């Protein structure tokens, strides 16, 4: 009859088949089918309202960001010519880091979501855009835009849960190698752009022999083309152009890439892994309605509170909830939409997971350490329960 959608996959029908909806834990939020569809309608209306309002101001916004990003990049490259003045060189590393962060997050990620396709601009089209990182855009569009955004937080389908390496959810089976969870996470953080590049490889399926060379080859060709050019630029051409300062430029460029990796990893992990975020099973999400999809996006994402500058530097992924509801709306609109989404959540008693950066990232690392161990040792984190009356499968 009813499936129970509980955060962190506590699907009561699945896990405890003897219990029914009337046994739902006290305090659980119950959404009727009508509630879910009404939430869907409200969010659709919010979306349509925003789409109708897109225009010159949004165009100006993204071009302003691009101008700042290009300016930072040029300034950062120029500062590499004066490594004998350490503060200038350091400022250059900072500018280049910011340039890469803006390029990857507020520009690249968002443009490749199709957020600016409506502008019909060659340089900002989701099918054509490439970003300043080693992962080829087309592979990312598959693993991210399609796999992650369609199957958000469905254990077994959304490969962003642990990226095939980490154990981030109590419903992922524990293996002894998960003892290395914190170490693997730290490595992934440092090498994040390479991790993102390898994402579409589905490394665990390769290890298990489920994917052969025929599957891998086209990906590898893409990596060679994209990553090769990125490496050439940052680690050969620009260092060579600074002549005697080859080494300091090389180090500076490497540092900028590293800073970007640490930052993007942190922001992205805050989007779905802080405590209180729900995960789902394939069974309970089969044949979802649009309303149910919306509710899953809200329960499966988490925001980070912060200043406007913080939001821009996170590519507005600090508004992960709004991003997951409206992945193709220009991200700089999310701060405007957030209070209205939060209002919907509060009216239906749904959790709206948000908190400061330190709190969210702390809770992410808490999970990384916790899930290194089997559930038997550390138990399951307590999370709010939401019960959804499903539209399909209801007798």
């Amino acid at each position, binding site marked *: 009859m009813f499936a129970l959608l509980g955060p962190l996959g506590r699907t009561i029908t699945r896990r405890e088949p003897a219990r029914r909806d009337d046994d739902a834990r006290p305090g659980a939020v119950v959404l009727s089918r009508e509630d879910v569809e009404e939430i869907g309608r409200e969010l659709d209306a919010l979306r349509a309202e925003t789409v109708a309002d897109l225009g010159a101001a949004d*165009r100006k916004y993204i071009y302003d960001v691009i101008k700042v990003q290009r300016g930072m990049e040029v300034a950062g490259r120029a500062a590499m010519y004066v490594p004998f003045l350490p503060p200038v060189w350091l400022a250059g590393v900072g500018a280049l880091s910011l340039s890469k962060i803006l390029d990857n997050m507020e520009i690249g990620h968002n443009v490749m979501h199709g957020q600016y396709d409506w502008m*019909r601009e060659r340089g900002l089209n989701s099918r054509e855009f490439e970003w300043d990182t080693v992962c080829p855009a087309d592979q990312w*569009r598959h693993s991210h835009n*399609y796999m992650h*955004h369609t199957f958000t937080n469905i254990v077994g389908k959304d490969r962003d849960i642990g990226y095939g390496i980490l154990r981030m959810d109590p419903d992922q089976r524990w293996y002894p190698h998960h003892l290395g969870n914190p170490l693997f996470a730290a490595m992934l953080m440092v090498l994040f752009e390479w991790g993102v590049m390898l994402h579409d490889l589905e490394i665990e399926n390769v290890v298990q022999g489920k994917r052969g060379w025929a599957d891998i080859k086209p990906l590898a060709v893409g990596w060679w083309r*994209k990553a090769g*050019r990125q490496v050439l630029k940052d680690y050969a051409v620009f260092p060579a152009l600074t002549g005697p300062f080859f080494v300091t430029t090389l180090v500076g460029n490497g540092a900028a890439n590293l800073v970007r990796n640490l930052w993007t990893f942190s922001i992205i992990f805050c989007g779905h892994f802080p405590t209180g975020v729900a995960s789902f099973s394939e069974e309970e999400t089969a044949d979802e309605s649009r309303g149910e999809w919306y509710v899953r996006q809200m329960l499966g994402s988490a925001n980070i509170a912060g200043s406007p500058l913080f939001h821009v530097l996170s590519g507005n992924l600090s508004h992960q909830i709004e991003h997951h509801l409206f992945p193709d709306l220009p991200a700089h609109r999310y701060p405007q939409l957030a209070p209205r989404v939060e209002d919907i959540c509060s009216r239906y008693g749904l959790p709206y997971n948000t908190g400061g950066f330190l709190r969210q990232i702390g809770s992410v690392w808490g999970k990384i350490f916790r899930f290194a161990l089997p559930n038997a040792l550390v138990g399951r984190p307590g999370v709010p329960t939401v019960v959804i009356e499903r539209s399909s499968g209801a007798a």
Partner: protein
Amino acid sequence: MGQIAAGRPVAPMLGRLVGLFETMATPHGVDRYTELIAPTVTANELRARVTDVHREVADSVTLQLRPTRQWRGFRAGQFVRVGVVVDGVRHTRCFSPCGSEHADDGRLELTVKAHPSGLVSRELLERAEPGLMVDLEQAAGEFHLPRPRPRDIVLISGGSGITPVLAMLRTLVDERHEGRVAFLHYVSRPDDLVHAGELRRLGKALGVTVAVGCTGTPGAGDVDGHFTAEHLAQAAPWVRGAQSYLCGPARMMTAVREVYDGMGIGGNLHTEAFEAAPAAPPADDDVRGTVTFSASGVDAANTGDVLLEQAEAAGLSPEYGCRMGICFSCTAVRRSGCTRNALTGKADAEPDQPIQLCINRPVGDVDIAV
């Protein structure tokens, strides 16, 4: 230009330099940087800067454009695609340059007539100023003067169809063409005539006859009423031995073709219809027409479903992911026709636009490059 002191061509060196800049700018390309400072300095992209704006008659504007160095020129009669930003969105329309092929400074002249519902034409009429940058594509189209030029040439146009034909006339005059040239042009009122001064000037060239007809104002033009065989006989009694070029509204084109066919010289008539403005979307629930999947050569009757489903029902397998409008995997180019977005309810009929197949329904006849 093109040579440096040592006598070596500049091009290979420039090419190598551009190559280095491209590596430095990877993955965005040099133009994504230069456009922020000097939009006219482009490594790859063709654009143009508006240098002069002239509003001669109500509802029309004549622009002089200076293209970037990638411009390969045009043949009189061809068209170019011009992209202009209106309310944040870049819209592209076709216009025929109306200047001579031999404009000495390589500039491009466009005369744009604003239609009441014409987004781009109205924008240009109301807001184009010198300094405006527009996107440009290389000239295209089969309707142009052949080389070598035919000896005798008849040019006929109506309304804003004047532009390609005027380009031909100006080109021939610049070339001091030795054969006979007749130019017949129709407008409905004298006030609608663009380039009046220029036509008068051209009419004085050796061997050139220029006649303007005013279809809605009897007695106002050189010839009376709509096109007839007599007009032709009057302006170009030698038409049988000539090649003729015609561009105008559909009704006029039919009338001219009938006269030529009647004289048995239909083979000498070369025509071009104007690019019609995108049609207004039909009513919401209007399920009719044919969906053409032109890349696979498959036609199907419109069922009213979203295009992804119609394509699959027709036995095709376009790429897709989410099937709900979020991943953009199913994007394909709508070559022509109108579609309605199922999420926003918005209809759109601009040709050659990428659309998401999983959330767009065809409205009437649609051609999709799948």
